[in-house]
């Protein structure tokens, strides 16, 4: 390992080291605030080292890791999301009587796994990163074990993650069996027999589909979003999804398979099914966590449309989409998390009746998030959807584009319902006083969701700099 390798790996090393540091902190002194600060500052430090690493890109560390601009960008998103989750989790765990400090160890271990996924084309790291992410998540989902559904959610996730890993492993094995290669480049082997490659790729995509909760591999999502502690649901929706999208992006773009019509059409089928099912099933939800789960299914369907559109237009669209989606979903879960006190979890739609009149700040933030998810102008979500549509139209994917339009109108119904509930004055007198007591929202948490909504609005109004930046990421891509 050379100095250049080390410099390229600094952010990842810092992130991995943070797990050990947190353990050490725990040995010295058990203090919730201390652990949370250590955890957040680890993420911040790792983020701070990204520019250092980006000066040397693209840089391959052996065969295992590839540090290029897009990898660092996704890493940045993941680290920033982990930072947000740390702040939310501190606030959330303060109100629960469990041992709190170990949570951050799991959180940072999972983040390390996710960050590794963003920077690899090698199956070994893919598997390692995935397992690191999943195994930590089992613990995180069940962390507040006295909540209802929490054990059920963790066991469900355990089983499904294991199944998806099995699919992935078998897919990798098929590809390796024929080409003798452990990298994505194997798919480009001209002499390989297509049956192995295609079968392997299909199994690989299935495994990723489980993690991304694409229809028909989506059944676990709503239960786990509902059962997990709210910050963990935010982590699942943001970090885990972000890492998997970057992996899928690399997988489809770094191989000629992106032109193979069978893979493309099966991805298109997944996208169409996800968009339709996510938005239609979301209509029936009264629980906001479940609603956001179905919404995430639909959004991953949109992302898939851009992935199918190919690297030329799709890469930028996906990157921008993921960045906006992460900020949006973190903001949305952030508000839910801030409102959920120890006894009462504030996740039912009815809890939000007239929220605007009780907590105008949080309600405005939540409205911005809902509008961003729905793709309404002045929010980043609008521009993100525009980019995806643009990518789809320029690749002449008329059917997915049409389904995207129809299904996003369906989705609009439930986003609007949430907004209308928050602004309604129906049960103002009842719920304001008795039903849901006002939780004291921490300054840090409030400021954070405020910043996120500011970011969303900025991405929607002056997206020029962000788009130019994302464009440069993909120019240098190999």
């Amino acid at each position, binding site marked *: 390992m050379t100095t250049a390798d080390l410099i390229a790996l600094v952010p990842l090393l810092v992130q991995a080291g943070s797990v050990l540091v947190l353990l050490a902190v725990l040995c010295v002194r058990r203090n919730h605030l201390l652990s949370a600060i250590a955890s957040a500052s680890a993420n911040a430090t790792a983020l701070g080292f990204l520019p250092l690493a980006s000066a040397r890109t693209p840089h391959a560390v052996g065969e295992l890791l590839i540090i290029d601009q897009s990898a660092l960008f996704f890493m940045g998103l993941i680290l920033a999301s982990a930072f947000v989750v740390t702040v939310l989790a501190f606030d959330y765990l303060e109100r629960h009587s469990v041992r709190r400090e170990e949570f951050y160890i799991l959180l940072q271990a999972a983040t390390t796994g996710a960050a590794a996924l963003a920077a690899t084309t090698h199956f070994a790291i893919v598997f390692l990163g995935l397992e690191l992410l999943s195994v930590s998540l089992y613990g995180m989902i069940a962390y507040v074990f006295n909540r209802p559904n929490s054990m059920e959610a963790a066991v469900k996730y355990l089983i499904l993650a294991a199944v998806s890993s099995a699919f992935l492993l078998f897919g990798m094995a098929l590809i390796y069996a024929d080409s003798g290669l452990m990298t994505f480049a194997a798919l480009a082997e001209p002499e390989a027999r297509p049956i192995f490659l295609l079968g392997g790729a299909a199994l690989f995509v299935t495994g990723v589909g489980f993690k991304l909760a694409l229809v028909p591999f989506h059944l676990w999502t709503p239960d786990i979003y509902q059962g997990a502690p709210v910050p963990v649901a935010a982590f699942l929706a943001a970090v885990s999804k972000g890492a998997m999208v970057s992996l899928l992006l690399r997988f489809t773009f770094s191989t000629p398979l992106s032109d193979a019509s069978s893979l493309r059409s099966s991805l298109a089928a997944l996208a169409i099914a996800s968009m339709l099912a996510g938005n239609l099933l979301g209509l029936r939800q009264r629980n906001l966590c479940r609603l956001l789960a179905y919404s995430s299914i639909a959004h991953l369907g949109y992302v898939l449309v851009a992935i199918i559109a190919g690297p030329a237009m799709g890469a930028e669209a996906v990157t921008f989409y993921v960045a906006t989606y992460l900020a949006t979903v973190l903001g949305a879960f952030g508000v839910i998390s801030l409102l959920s006190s120890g006894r009462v979890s504030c996740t039912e739609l009815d809890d939000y009746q007239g929220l605007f009149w009780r907590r105008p700040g949080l309600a405005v933030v939540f409205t911005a998030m809902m509008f961003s998810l729905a793709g309404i102008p002045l929010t980043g979500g609008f521009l993100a959807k525009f980019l995806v549509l643009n990518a789809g139209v320029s690749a002449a994917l008329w059917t997915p584009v*049409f389904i995207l339009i129809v299904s996003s109108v369906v989705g609009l119904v439930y986003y609007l319902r949430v907004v209308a509930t928050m602004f309604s004055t129906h049960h103002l007198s009842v719920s304001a006083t008795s039903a849901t007591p006002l939780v004291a929202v921490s300054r840090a948490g409030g400021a954070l969701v405020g910043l996120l909504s500011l970011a969303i609005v900025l991405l929607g109004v002056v997206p020029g700099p962000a788009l130019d930046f994302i464009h440069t990421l993909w120019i240098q891509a190999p």
Partner: protein
Amino acid sequence: MNLELIILIPFVGGLLAWLTGLRSATWPRWIALVSLVATFTITLFWWGAEPLATGAGGAVPAGGNWLELSVRPWIPRFGITFFLGIDGLSLLLVLLTLFLGVFAVVVSWCEIGDRVGLFHFNLLWTIAGILGVFLALDLFLFFFFWELMIVPMYFLIGMWGHENRHYASTKFFLFTQASGLLMLAAILGLHAAYAQQTGVTTFSYPELLTASLPIETSRWLMLGFFVAFAVKLPAVPLHTWLADAHTEAPTAGSLLLAGVLLKTGAYGLLRFAVPLFPEAAAEFAPWAMGMGVIGILYGAKLAFAQRDLKRLVAYSSVSHMGFVLLGVFAANVLAWQGVVVQMLAHGISTGALFVMAGALQERLHTRDLDRMGGFWEHMPRFAGVSLLFALASLGLPGMGNFIGEFLVLLGAFAASPIAVVCAAFGLVFATLYSLWLVQEVFHGNYRSSSTRLPTDLSLRESTVFAALTIAILWLGLYPTPFLSAAKPSLDSLLGNGAPSAVKLVNQSVP
């Protein structure tokens, strides 16, 4: 003068109204009023201004009749600019918007008592969005404003509306959003096709006008635009959102919806759908004109069947907007001039009728025609003004609507005599429902849902109606300034899209 100011003042005014609304209920009203009047005054600056010289250095694109243009970079990566422009057509509609906007503030003065700051914030942002639609010359920017104006309108209906407001506001939002996204797909398709043809990525309207697309492509793209505009207009199979939204909205909301929001659909057809895809539009013209005729007759029939005052007026809009659709696809200058006058006149007369309905509801707390009657002797001024606007609505000569409908029919006759013959029956039905409305409310035996006698017009209301009356009479008696303001732009819009299937009528009113 800066074009951005026209949009910026209401935007900033809205924010100020919200902020001051936290402390007081009076400030937001005055801020809204002052900012709209100020914008109106600024806009008058362009009235009678000389059009910009075209061609010089490519700064001003040829083929338009622009009074002012302003381009700023926005998202260079996709060739999106903050491109605003005003010509005679835009100018008239901007003036109409601000004119009615001022009255929207005035009629809400007493009607809206709670959350005043937020109300005026939404009102001003809706107006700003509508102004943006009329001024945007970059298709992305146009779509941006197109979507933007819906959101505050949704809140206006959903928060200050009547009994069934949630249903109405959601339906309104969904209809417009669905059609809007189809339009976005069409815009992107046009963008991609143009980029493929010329290698230039742009959303600039004057540039895209020069695209020559294969007819199969332009058919689909035209349809995408058409659906969005037909929903807003509304054209008949797509009109069902309108009655709910108009009925449930507060008076100011109905006034803006009927007065200007519907005009964005007509404007879109005139500015985008026909000139961008002239051949496809000409092919589609018989269908669209058929839809227009059906809208005229069916809207009138529905209006006649209503027992709810606001619903009646709402359906009469469907009928009036049928004339607009008929005229737009007749595609000649005469019909288009009629369309412009019809847009202005309908904005004023229907706006006035909604103000009337709102004033009645404020007094009686009902919109049910069965629970009113015989008010003439208690409120003679109110009744007189209402009769005047009902007559305007039925197209009595001397008022703006007559000029509009007459010109549309005259122009459309060249394109399709049969359609005109059928559409002319709409005038008869309009007489029926308009007079019926007056008879039910003001004549007959005294019936009231309220124990108190209804009071006549207050000074504030009298001022509003006086201004609206002057406007509608001006349009009816001396429409030449409006016609000649719009004519150069209409000429250039039509000139660009030389309609092949429809014979051009050369003669036209000045």
